[in-house]
């Protein structure tokens, strides 16, 4: 290499920082100097440098100060306490255990405060390699831990990356505490990148799908908004909130006098809304009078209490439960768990109680996917529908997650889990002499349930030895290896044949956490990472995620975060080498247009080359096993994987599977 040109010398870091200090020094240098500083900074931020142009070497800070008689405060280069330290004090009062982030200079002071001033505890700083991972992690975590964690997003770009994950959490009504940042007032901003990452209204990017946001302009305001935001995020129906931490507030010195004036308000979490007694009485009358009541349940239970209470209600009425599975709501092997007959039960019902429906219309209607979108009701026109839900308490315009309007006959706007004990009391009061009729109904349910396992076994035997491996075979091999463990699923069911709910005894609330909410692909690996973290904190559990190959490719770096932070889990890639959902959509269109029915795989298959997922996992420092395409080898592979998880490792097993379970 030849000698450095003076321009390259200008890229030297010390020189670069000096240049900034001068530029920031209240315009003491002349326009020409400012111009050359700007050019240098732009170059520094967008290296490589252009062809050399002759330029004088930069003066040192001391030279500049001497020449320009810089005021003393400009040369006060260190400080003991900053606004960002106070922000950490605020967060510490909220008992947040973890904060996930991909680093970004808009919050550099806060990050440093969290890890040094806050000693990197409560919250502990977790490194994520994409902002979608940070928020997705918070999503999965909250559903297992029952409380939010935080994520920190770089100004503008970080929030943009995070947007889909935030949308999923919003649609899934899951709390998370989000922070983003922006450089301070215009005169303080360094030219170039700091402007790109500054925004007047950073929350605007995601405001349509968060519960609340604020850009506090003082530290006192930061304290109040963060505490308020936390309480709001957790209030039913929960959701993400976003606080913008101003760069100047973060980085400015906090004097003892100023600090003495600040107050962190205490956190009080509001009680949840409960259905009014008159409505509950009416609902109880309707349920008790019904010959064929059905309980439809969707985003209902947020804890074991919710599950246990629903068991009490169902047993009291001897009413079947049809579970739409946005949460773990009801024990899957209870005789009243009647998903296998869901369609028939709804069709015959004279009274339907729908608990926290995500989509009441969809529960009671079907739309046919042909050119003419005909729809039909799946229940009797005379069936009485009672909804008990918080659905209407958090609804915004624009994004359409609220689903088609569907009016219940009795709509009780309240939190279903908080209301459940009062509904049970109301039913007990109305029950009178109906007990024996209920018992007969219960017996029918027990009889029907006996057939469920046999049917599942008959279905599972189909393609038992097939390669690609069938969903039933995979879940059977998995069960065989984990049946004596305290296992917990962290992924939804929909693409793998629903075997967990058909045959596994899902009894504990933490054994299943529902789906993504917004159907944003990429949820599966990231939510699993966060859920596994929450399981790790409890200890002794074996967290399992079944993840689509398409889903995994949105965030393979979860394996690194898991390896780095020692978060063990078993991740099985349900590898159908495709965005299979979309394969079927394109097929449908080709058929509809009477052409090219062999082409559905163009743009939807993930083949040629095939991806080596196990190798990818290993490259991130995790355990990678597979690909396994022979069902006979699967048991051994899972056994190895389980052993590694129990030894504290994140494990990925690549299983070549049928397109659908």
């Amino acid at each position, binding site marked *: 290499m030849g000698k450095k040109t003076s321009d390259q010398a200008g890229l030297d870091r010390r020189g670069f920082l000096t240049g900034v200090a001068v530029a920031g020094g209240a315009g003491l240098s002349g326009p020409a100097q400012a111009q050359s500083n700007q050019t240098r900074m732009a170059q520094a931020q967008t290296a490589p440098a252009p062809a050399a142009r002759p330029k004088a070497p930069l003066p040192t800070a001391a030279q500049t100060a001497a020449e320009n008689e810089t005021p003393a405060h400009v040369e006060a280069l260190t400080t003991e306490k900053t606004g960002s330290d106070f922000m950490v004090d605020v967060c510490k009062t909220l008992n947040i255990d973890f904060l996930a982030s991909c680093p970004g200079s808009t919050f550099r002071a806060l990050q440093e405060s969290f890890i040094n001033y806050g000693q990197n505890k409560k919250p502990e700083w977790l490194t994520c390699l994409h902002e979608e991972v940070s928020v997705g992690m918070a999503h999965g975590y909250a559903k297992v831990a029952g409380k939010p964690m935080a994520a920190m997003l770089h100004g503008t770009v970080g929030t943009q990356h995070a947007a889909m994950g935030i949308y999923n959490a919003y649609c899934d009504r899951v709390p998370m505490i989000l922070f983003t940042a922006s450089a301070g007032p215009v005169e303080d901003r360094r030219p170039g990148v700091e402007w790109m990452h500054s925004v007047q209204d950073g929350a605007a990017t995601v405001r349509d799908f968060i519960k609340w946001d604020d850009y506090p302009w003082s530290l006192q305001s930061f304290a109040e908004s963060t505490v308020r935001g936390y309480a709001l995020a957790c209030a039913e129906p929960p959701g993400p909130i976003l606080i913008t931490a101003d760069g100047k507030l973060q980085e400015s010195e906090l004097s003892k006098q100023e600090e003495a004036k600040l107050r962190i308000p205490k956190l009080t979490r509001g009680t949840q809304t409960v259905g009014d007694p008159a409505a509950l009485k009416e609902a109880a009358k309707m349920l008790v009078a019904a010959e064929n009541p059905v309980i439809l349940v969707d985003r209902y239970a947020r804890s074991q209490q919710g599950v246990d209470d629903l068991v009490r209600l169902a047993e009291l009425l001897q009413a079947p439960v049809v579970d739409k599975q946005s949460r773990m709501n009801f024990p899957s*092997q209870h005789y009243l768990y009647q998903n296998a007959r869901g369609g028939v039960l709804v069709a015959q019902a004279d009274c339907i109680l729908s608990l926290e429906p995500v989509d009441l219309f969809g529960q009671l209607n*079907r739309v*046919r*996917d*042909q050119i*003419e*979108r*005909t*729809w*039909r*009701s799946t229940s009797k026109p005379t069936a009485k529908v009672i909804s008990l839900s918080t659905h209407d308490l958090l609804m915004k315009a624009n994004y359409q997650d609220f689903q088609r309007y569907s009016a219940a006959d009795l709509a009780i706007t309240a939190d279903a889990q908080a209301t459940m004990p009062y509904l049970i009391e109301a039913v007990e009061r109305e029950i009178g002499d109906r007990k024996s009729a209920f018992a007969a109904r219960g017996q029918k349910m027990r009889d029907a349930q006996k057939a469920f*396992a*046999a049917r599942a*076994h*008959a*279905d*599972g*035997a*189909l*393609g*038992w*030895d*097939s390669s*690609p491996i*069938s*969903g*039933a*075979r995979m*879940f*059977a*091999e998995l*069960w*065989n290896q984990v*049946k004596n463990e305290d296992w917990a699923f962290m992924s939804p069911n*929909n*693409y793998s*044949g*629903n*075997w967990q709910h058909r*045959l*596994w*005894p899902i009894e504990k609330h933490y054994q299943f956490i529902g789906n993504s909410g917004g159907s944003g692909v990429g949820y599966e690996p990231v939510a699993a990472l966060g859920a596994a973290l929450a399981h790790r904190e409890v200890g002794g559990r074996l967290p399992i995620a079944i993840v689509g190959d398409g889903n995994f490719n949105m965030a393979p770096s979860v394996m690194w975060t898991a390896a780095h932070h020692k978060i063990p889990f078993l991740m099985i890639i349900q590898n159908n080498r495709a965005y*299979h959902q979309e*394969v*079927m959509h394109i*097929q*449908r269109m*080709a*058929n*509809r247009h*009477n*052409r090219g*029915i*062999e082409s*559905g795989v163009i743009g939807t298959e993930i083949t040629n080359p095939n991806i080596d997922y196990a190798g990818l996992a290993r490259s991130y420092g995790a355990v990678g096993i597979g690909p396994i395409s022979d069902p006979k080898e699967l048991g051994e592979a899972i056994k190895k994987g389980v052993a590694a998880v129990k030894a504290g490792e994140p494990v990925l097993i690549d299983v070549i599977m*049928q*397109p*659908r*379970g």
Partner: protein
Amino acid sequence: MKIFAITLLAGLSLCANSALAQQAAAPAGDIENGKKHYTTDGCYQCHGTLGNGAALTGPKLANTELPFDAFLMQLRHPANDMPPYEAKIISDKTVADIYAYMKSLPKSPDAKSLPLLTGMGVK
């Protein structure tokens, strides 16, 4: 938007067809060609690579007990959500080949002989 009872109509048409099919013998089909088209024409996507069926996307087809006419009718006028396969994109002959392939598949094992399967979920 039209509202009508899809299942009812579909059910009727399948019944009518199976009655018809009692008389007609299933056509002889070319199993190898059927196997090829089962994949290239997308049946495997919803019905599994061996006609094993999948809970949410399509019922089992292996060793189908439907008479050929009902099988064909389902492709031409699907009962519900299955995409239509009209004669322009798949001939009666090709459907007969797929039908023959489905009929030729080995019977799946009896669940009772699979302790791993019947033991799933049993502690």
